[in-house]
């Protein structure tokens, strides 16, 4: 037995010695991701991590600048027809795929056709139809027309012409969304079904090349692309991704220098708040509670809904529970992602709807009393569905407590479910209250306001208002398309209808608390489309 113990000791010693420091070689940027990549197929991917990685090695027609605006990328320049419906993109001559083939207009046509092909059932196909308004996209998705009829055409190798149904003011900023990325047809067909499952089955035309990756990997790496047309501007030698799902391990890894940037959990903010490397970044997501207005008679009562939304102490939730820099939100469109024609934040004024939504326990009690009287009841039991993740469960526990203490006679039960099932329950109307979130897909309030039109699948409360539907219609396909100021004003009118009817109870705009090492600068954060961009990072 002594021999055995000695052996174990020796083994442990041998293992513990000679562990190379975990710090990176060269000037690789070491970043943490919270969730694994779901797909490297630009037309199939739907999650933030996948988008970030795909955009790391692929350029679209445009790319995102630090402020989220569209700047030229594969498209060197473009012309827009006077009526705003025809875009002609001129592609750069020196853009090449990592197999040496040039990037051509046909690659974009192929990629876009994949996105609308009903056989692929791309979740983000509506980026081309409803949002992008590309001619025939909606009909092709519905299976009424052939993919070849899509309103996109390769005039020659380096000229791409796009035709839209109506002018779309933010069309250029859609071009950096991965669904609109090019795919080389010859390469795609040569790798068959394995496209996007390994470094050998993806092509790069961007700042980096994927050089190690496995499906759903916990660690993978991208290296600088020497053939990138703008290679001189890329200062780091590569990006090393590490999946960490435990926030305490993440912070410890950061402290040992193994990671250059990590997400910090609210609990840990106390530990790092005095650190100069600590910062909070807007994440764009709006968290809100959706009442089932159609399915639950008590929630059809406006006073009850008003009572519920006034009874929430949003400031307490963000300051004492989340602590990650999230901002209390009293509007249906969250803060800091949509900038209007005058350059201001669409939701910059959070007191705009103070008559419909605020943290006010007294008003809540009044509405509550009125609501109960109208319904002729003195107590009410409601059920709220919540995702089985950490943050939503915490927020829900606080909401329950706030509601039950402010509104006498109210009991709220929490039902915790995996997200997939929660979404399905809510879409089927099998819920009473639901805690949910929505992330912006593009920098326009419509990404939120489009949800509450009659019969939209994400209009969980089955709320319906003709006036609202008319405004939204006018703003997407009607005359207001060409009138940015008028459209902006109309969107506020629509938002007011949602707030006045308490269709949702907005809670907060999510932010992420992060640490970024002192020697790293130039990480760009965005609330929509691509959450992080690393190509301009400098690591000293």
């Amino acid at each position, binding site marked *: 037995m002594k021999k055995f113990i000695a052996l174990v000791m020796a083994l442990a010693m041998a293992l513990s010695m000679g562990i190379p420091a975990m710090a990176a070689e060269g000037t690789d940027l070491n970043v943490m991701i919270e969730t694994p990549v779901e797909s490297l197929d630009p037309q199939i991917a739907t999650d933030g991590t996948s988008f970030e990685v795909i955009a790391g090695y692929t350029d679209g027609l445009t790319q995102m600048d630090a402020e989220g605006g569209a700047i030229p990328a594969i498209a060197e320049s473009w012309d827009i027809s006077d009526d705003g419906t025809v875009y002609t993109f001129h592609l750069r001559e020196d853009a090449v795929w990592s197999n040496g083939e040039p990037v051509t207009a046909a690659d974009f046509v192929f990629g876009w056709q994949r996105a609308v092909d009903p056989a692929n059932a791309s979740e983000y196909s509506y980026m081309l139809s409803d949002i992008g308004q590309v001619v025939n996209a909606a009909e092709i998705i519905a299976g009424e027309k052939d993919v070849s009829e899509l309103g996109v055409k390769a005039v020659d190798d380096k000229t791409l012409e796009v035709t839209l149904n109506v002018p779309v003011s933010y069309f250029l900023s859609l071009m950096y969304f991965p669904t609109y990325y090019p795919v080389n047809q010859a390469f795609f067909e040569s790798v068959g079904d394995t496209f996007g499952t390994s470094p050998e089955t993806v092509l790069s035309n961007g700042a980096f090349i994927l050089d190690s990756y496995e499906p759903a990997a916990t660690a993978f790496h991208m290296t600088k692309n020497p053939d990138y047309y703008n290679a001189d501007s890329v200062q780091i030698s590569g990006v090393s991704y590490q999946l960490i799902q435990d926030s*305490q391990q993440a912070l410890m890894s950061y402290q040992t220098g193994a990671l250059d940037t990590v997400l910090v959990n609210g609990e840990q903010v106390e530990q790092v708040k005095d650190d100069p*490397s600590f910062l909070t970044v807007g994440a764009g997501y709006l968290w809100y509670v959706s009442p089932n207005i159609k399915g639950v008679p008590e929630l059809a009562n406006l006073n009850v809904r008003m009572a519920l939304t006034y009874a929430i102490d949003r400031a307490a939730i963000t300051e*004492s529970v989340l602590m990650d820099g999230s901002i209390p939100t009293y509007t249906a469109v969250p803060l800091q992602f949509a900038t209007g024609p005058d350059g201001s934040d669409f939701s910059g004024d959070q007191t705009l709807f103070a008559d419909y939504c605020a943290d006010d326990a007294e008003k809540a009690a009044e509405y509550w009393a009125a609501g109960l009287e109208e319904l002729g009841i003195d107590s009410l039991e409601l059920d709220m569905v919540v*995702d089985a993740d950490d943050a939503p469960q915490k927020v829900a526990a*606080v909401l329950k407590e706030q509601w039950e203490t402010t509104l006498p006679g109210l009991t709220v039960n929490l039902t915790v479910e995996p997200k997939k099932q929660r979404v399905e329950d809510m879409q089927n109307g099998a819920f009473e209250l639901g805690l949910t979130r929505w992330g912006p897909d593009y920098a326009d309030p419509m990404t939120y306001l489009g949800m509450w039109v009659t019969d939209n699948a994400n209009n969980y409360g089955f709320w319906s208002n003709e006036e609202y539907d008319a405004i939204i219609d006018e703003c997407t396909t009607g005359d207001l398309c060409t009138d940015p100021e008028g459209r902006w004003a109309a969107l506020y009118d629509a938002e007011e209808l949602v707030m006045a009817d308490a269709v949702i109870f907005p809670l907060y705009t999510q932010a992420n608390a992060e*640490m970024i090492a002192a020697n790293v600068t130039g990480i760009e954060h965005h609330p929509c489309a691509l959450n992080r961009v690393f190509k301009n990072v400098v690591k000293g």
Partner: protein
Amino acid sequence: MAKTKTPAMAAVPYVPVAEDFVLKNASGELALDANFASQSFWKDVLIRFFRKKSAVIGMLLIIIITLLAIVGPGMNAYTYSGQTLSEKNLAPRVAALEKFGIFDGSETMRTTTGSKTVNNYVDKGLEDVYYWFGSDNFGRDIWTRTWSGTRVSLIIAAAATLIDMIIGMSYGLISGYFGGKVDMLMQRFLEIMNGIPRLVIVTLLLLVLEPGMLTIIFALMLTEWVGMSRIARAEMLKLKEQEFVLASRTLGAGKFFIIFKEILPNIIGPIITQVMFSIPTAIFTEAFLSFVGLGIPVPRCSLGSLISDGYNSFTTHPFQIVPPVVVMALLMFSFNLVADGLREALDPKMKEV
């Protein structure tokens, strides 16, 4: 007392009389034998159990913890769900102990810019506030939550364990005793049951049924009995060819009489040990379900969910994970001591020890 016979009368055979069968010097002490036989098996077990000091300590600890689980949550004004967000993450503070410099509400925070010792009761002006075990990240009293969590865990564990002991033990014993085709069929069924990962079955159940304590007990029951049945069967295989079983069978004892009356008492040791391990397994499985978000519905808590809550503050406020872990460890330790004591008291072979 018998008469002396003359040789002339020797031909007459002797006829015994009643007096011949009475003991000389009859006294109470010799009646010991009869006394021993009338003492019941269980009384015997109890006497031997209480003779073992460690078992008694274990028993006492379990009683104390159970009592605290019953009265603990009512010992201060806090409730298990009441949140005071302004009083969150306070370190333990006890009035009687703070003069000695312990449990005075101060804690050392390790930050990335150095460690510092803070007393949030003083800093936040909460001079008259006392959280005996501290408060969690919602400002809920950990003392109250620990004991109400203990209550929930004990109920879940006891119910689940009792049920799977009964089901699992009977299943294993019957399967092992009959052997052959019966055993084959029963084992194949068990293999199918157990071949499907527990997690798949449990998650599915929790998604289909209303979440709550009964569902969790049901889910645990469905999956945990297999381990018990396997132990019982293995023990049965070991014992069934032994002489005492053969003897019993030769004497015409029924099959079930042999299984439950003859063999069961002989394998009670390993069974009880398994039961004592079923309890933490039940508590842990519930904790795991809490970890994946399918445990006892918030804001109710169990020891397992308290440990996974405390886990999230492990590096920031380590005091939060200590109470549930200590209670859990003490429970396990006492169950072990009791199990040991019971095993020795129950084991017929150890009678003379």
